[in-house]
């Protein structure tokens, strides 16, 4: 039976599930509930089958290579190549797809009547299907088809809630940036096609040596811009904090958890598999980009008080951490240290899985909070833990995981990244060592700042007293939403517990690469299930940690609760308020919490304070009626790069409208001049 699943027909069945889900929900678009049931059913079954398919392929370790259908254009072949790396990404996509679809089934109810649910189901299934095709296609054009399908369907999902013009603007910005990115990707593939005369990855890989090194660098730059825009690295990230919050929550969970990983998948596929051997400066560039993205990502997250934008910026930070892993892998391999390179790759892949898990958990949590509160502004939350206990607990677990606190999965992938960077510092020469020191510093500071940011986020949303009336009549989110969040939270524990087994699995994935065929990773799984690096440099044991935490916490809790002074009476009183009546306004808000960090990093973030005072009567200006302080952090990229660029293009196009001036004589003179010029220059 396993052979029948893990085969061409298995994958084909997987894709048809999503296609049926898509067109079925279009068919039922008249009746909302029916469309929702149909699309959710197929999305859930498709994702479940995807998890089954990919886990079997991973365990089995086979590779599938098949093409289906004949195309009129000989350069395009619908050829798919599912190796270990692709099946890992299929696993991540379908796992997150499964939970988001379950969550979506409950979440979509509040769109009934407002927009067509059939269209939402159609686009959602197309998105999942195209995500799967992106990570498995092995022909560049087929990849571009899936890539564009993914971008277009996610664009329409972002602008789905089009009553709010901000969503439409965010959607346009997203599609423009993605399209520019795709243009760069097309140019990169065309350059490769110029020297290898084929768009097939296998042929590209075989004849990668034909491409001259200068063109290869150009391909690297274009590919980095293209996939970097989709992954959201720093200079090209401005669409991410705008687009992800605009989409419906289960879609933004998919986009943030999984879609930006397709950029990472292609970076791995191209730079570690297809375009090998690569020069040294590629690895260093990826490392620096990773370091900068992670540090700036978390700093911008500090300034946010919109819950979804905060989580979007954290995606940028985690992408930075993943790129640290991959960048170190590329650098080590070029320097001839395959064992360390494999370690870097394992760290990157492990963090991809972890980030997918806890980021989608956080987005789903944020989604259910927004669904109840109908606003994304954290300042108006407060005290939600008493009204939404399950969501609060799962959000807490998610925040602990993303800040890499020990027992959970985030810690182990960051531990592996640290090991890769430590070895970089330990074994490399002077100039390279300083790049690794910079990377380790950025990772260390990112860890600390992420922790601060999530204390701010969690406390602003769930703790202390409600800061708006709306909080009073919120109630816990519906059952399917709770189930998906609870399972994701428990997954972070389980993945943390089995991290050594998973590291072994990632090592097998790594070894499926041609460049890592014979190498074993620097950090291996020793006999008694704990991670140990080769020279005994460092080792950590996940089960050991869980055991230790559990026992000690139990002893302390039971000790104090039972042994010492059992008959202690606990009275309920008001919080100490130095005698004043304590109003919710006196609590610390999200902006207040982050103000000190923002002031410390003020030359990076350039915060601006605007005081406007309203007086009773304008002349005498002594008795202010009201005083408003607005603190804002401008988006530097927008002001110094993107807006001037747009103004310049608008200027040129306005000036070029003069060609169409409306005067016949001028038009004829164009033809006359064209004739004269052509006659004289050409002859």
């Amino acid at each position: 039976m396993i052979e029948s699943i893990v085969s061409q027909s298995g994958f084909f069945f997987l894709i048809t599930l999503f296609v049926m889900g898509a067109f079925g929900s279009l068919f039922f678009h008249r009746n909302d509930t029916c469309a929702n049931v149909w699309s959710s059913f197929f999305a859930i079954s498709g994702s479940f089958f995807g998890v089954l398919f990919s886990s079997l392929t991973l365990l089995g370790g086979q590779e599938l290579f098949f093409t289906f259908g004949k195309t009129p254009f000989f350069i395009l072949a619908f050829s798919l190549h599912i190796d270990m790396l692709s099946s890992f990404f299929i696993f991540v996509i379908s796992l997150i797809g499964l939970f988001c679809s379950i969550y979506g089934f409950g979440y979509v109810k509040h769109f009934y009547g407002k927009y067509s649910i059939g269209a939402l189901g159609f686009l959602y299934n197309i998105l999942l299907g195209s995500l799967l095709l992106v990570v498995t296609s092995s022909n560049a054009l087929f990849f571009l088809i899936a890539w564009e399908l993914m971008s277009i369907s996610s664009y329409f999902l972002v602008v789905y809630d089009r009553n709010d013009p901000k969503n439409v603007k965010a959607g346009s910005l997203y599609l423009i940036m993605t399209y520019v990115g795709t243009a760069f990707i097309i140019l990169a593939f065309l350059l490769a096609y110029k020297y290898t005369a084929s768009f097939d990855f296998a042929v590209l890989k075989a004849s990668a040596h034909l491409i001259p090194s200068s063109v290869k660098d150009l391909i690297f730059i274009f590919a980095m811009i293209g996939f970097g825009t989709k992954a959201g690295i720093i200079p090209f990230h401005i669409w991410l904090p705008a687009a992800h919050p605009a989409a419906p929550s289960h879609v933004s969970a998919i986009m943030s958890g999984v879609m930006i990983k397709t950029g990472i998948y292609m970076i791995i596929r191209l730079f570690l598999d297809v375009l090998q051997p690569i020069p040294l400066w590629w690895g260093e560039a990826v490392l620096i980009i990773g370091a900068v993205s992670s540090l700036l990502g978390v700093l911008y997250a500090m300034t946010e008080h919109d819950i979804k934008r905060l989580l979007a910026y954290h995606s940028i930070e985690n992408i930075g951490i993943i790129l640290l892993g991959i960048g170190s892998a590329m650098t080590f391999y070029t320097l001839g240290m395959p064992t360390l390179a494999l370690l870097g790759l394992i760290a990157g892949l492990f963090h991809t899985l972890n980030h997918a898990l806890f980021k989608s958990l956080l987005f789903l949590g944020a989604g259910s909070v927004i669904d109840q509160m109908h606003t994304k502004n954290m300042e108006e939350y407060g005290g939600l833990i008493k009204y939404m206990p399950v969501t609060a607990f799962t959000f807490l677990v998610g925040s602990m995981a993303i800040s890499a606190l020990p027992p959970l999965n985030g810690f182990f992938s960051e531990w592996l990244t640290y090991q890769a960077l430590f070895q970089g510092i330990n074994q490399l020469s002077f100039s390279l060592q300083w790049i690794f020191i910079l990377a380790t510093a950025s990772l260390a500071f990112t860890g600390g700042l992420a922790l601060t940011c999530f204390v701010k986020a969690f406390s602003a949303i769930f703790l202390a007293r409600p800061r708006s009336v709306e909080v009073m009549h919120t109630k816990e989110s519906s059952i399917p939403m709770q189930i998906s969040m609870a399972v994701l939270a428990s997954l972070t524990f389980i993945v943390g517990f089995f991290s050594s087994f998973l590291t072994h699995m990632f090592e097998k994935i790594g070894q499926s690469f041609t460049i890592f065929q014979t190498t074993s990773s620097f950090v291996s799984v020793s006999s008694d299930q704990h991670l140990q690096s080769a020279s005994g440099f460092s080792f950590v044991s996940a089960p050991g940690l869980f055991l230790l935490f559990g026992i000690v916490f139990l002893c302390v809790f039971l000790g104090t609760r039972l042994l010492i002074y059992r008959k202690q009476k606990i009275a309920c009183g008001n919080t100490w308020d130095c005698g004043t009546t304590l109003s919710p306004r006196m609590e610390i808000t999200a902006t207040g919490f982050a103000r000190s960090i923002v002031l410390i990093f003020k030359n990076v973030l350039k915060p601006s304070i605007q005081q406007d005072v309203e007086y009773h009567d304008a002349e005498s200006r002594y008795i202010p009626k009201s005083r408003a302080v607005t603190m804002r952090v401008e988006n530097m990229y927008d002001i110094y790069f993107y807006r001037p660029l747009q103004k310049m293009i608008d200027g040129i196009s306005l000036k070029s409208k003069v060609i169409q001036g409306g005067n016949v004589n001028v038009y004829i003179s164009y033809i006359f001049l064209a004739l004269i010029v052509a006659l004289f220059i050409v002859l």
Partner: protein
Amino acid sequence: MSILLLISILLASVISMIITKKRFVIETLSLITSSITCITAFLTALQVSSVGTLTFFTFFSVDALGAIVLMIIGSIGLATTIYSIAYLREETKKQIIGFTRVKQYFVLLQIFLFAMYLAITAGSPIFAWIAIEATTLSTAFLISFYNKPSAIEGAWKYLIINSVGLLLGFFGTLLYFTAVASIGEGGFVSWQTLRDNAGNLSPLIAKIAFVFVLIGYGTKVGFAPMHTWKPDAYSKAPAPLGALLSGALLPVAFFVLLKFKMITDLSIGSSFSQTLFFVFGLFSIAVASLIMFNARNYKRLLAYSSIENAGIMALGFGFGGLGIFGAVLHMIYHSAVKVVMFFSAGNILLKYSTAKICNIKNALKVIPTTSVLFILGFLIVTGTPPFGIFFSKIYILGTGIKMYPLISFVAMFFMTMVFIGFLRHVTQMFLSRSSETQEPGEGNVWLVIPPIFFLLLIILLSFSIPPFLEHLIHEVVLYYSYD
């Protein structure tokens, strides 16, 4: 034999249309004629794909590219006739036009279609020139159809610019004829004779002649410096005509231009004509993408998109080899997608009765099917992957990047600019919210069926090309690539 059948049917229908008083007779007659022309077009195409270049009655000859363009004209002609019947019924309901206008419209439409037919099947350059002159005549009146000052102005500009262009084209053709005249070859001069003795055309005359022909017929195709009539003509002409103008007339003019390029390549090698094609192609893409960025009228937007696609086709034919394969595919896809877009633009015009982009609000809710058609059309025409135009672009840029990487980069930059400009307008029209409520409704169902048919045609053609068409395209690639 098919051409004679065609002429007799056309003459009969035109005369009877002028005589009859009843509108129903006119509509059925024009329907019959255009369906017959469509069938004959497909028959000749099948014949050409099996037999090769078809010549009959010495005056008419159809080669592979001609067959493809014939099919385009036939199918788009039929679609336009069907759509015009529904469109004009809606317009008469809104009291915009009377019965005489309808009669004049259908007569001119049939003349226009037949003139394009003649241009393709014409054996000699002069007949092709005359046929294209006839198209100018018929479309001039069609553009001034609504008898408003702005329509007259559009028609006047169309007339002046096109006749200057065609006169230059005429002069260029005559220069080619000097090669034949010098060796006393009297009588009927066909394309074939010009090709045979392209040798004894002195190189300098060939260059000058090609420049004149390029500027002349380039005006008809709509290359950059000579494109100025297109936006005015497309925005003032009735919507169905826009589809014909950009879907059928553009390939016809391109076809004639390519014939002359063949002759020049034979006499002085392809590098001369290639550089000219690159210059005009790139200039058209640049100008169109820049102006399109903030166009204010969606019909003018479609005109600029036609100019840009003409530029891309010029690049394709300039690059040669696989580029020609891409360019021919591009021509087919572009004509089909322009039909979809112009018909949906027509529906929008009927519903909102304004062509200004800023007045169109919340169209996705008011006219859902047309909006979906227009959005899909926008995605197709800007070359997003799942649809065919992406592949033709990849072919063209793929061959281009081999010899001239810089041209491909610049072209790619402007194509992205086109997408961004188009997206701004699409979001403004379809995703914006409107305060006043417009009762949703699509009007006549026949307004929506032709565009949906062509959309399905594009999707079908993007994934599987029928064998006879593939054979024709390969023949074109062999015939038209010189080196």
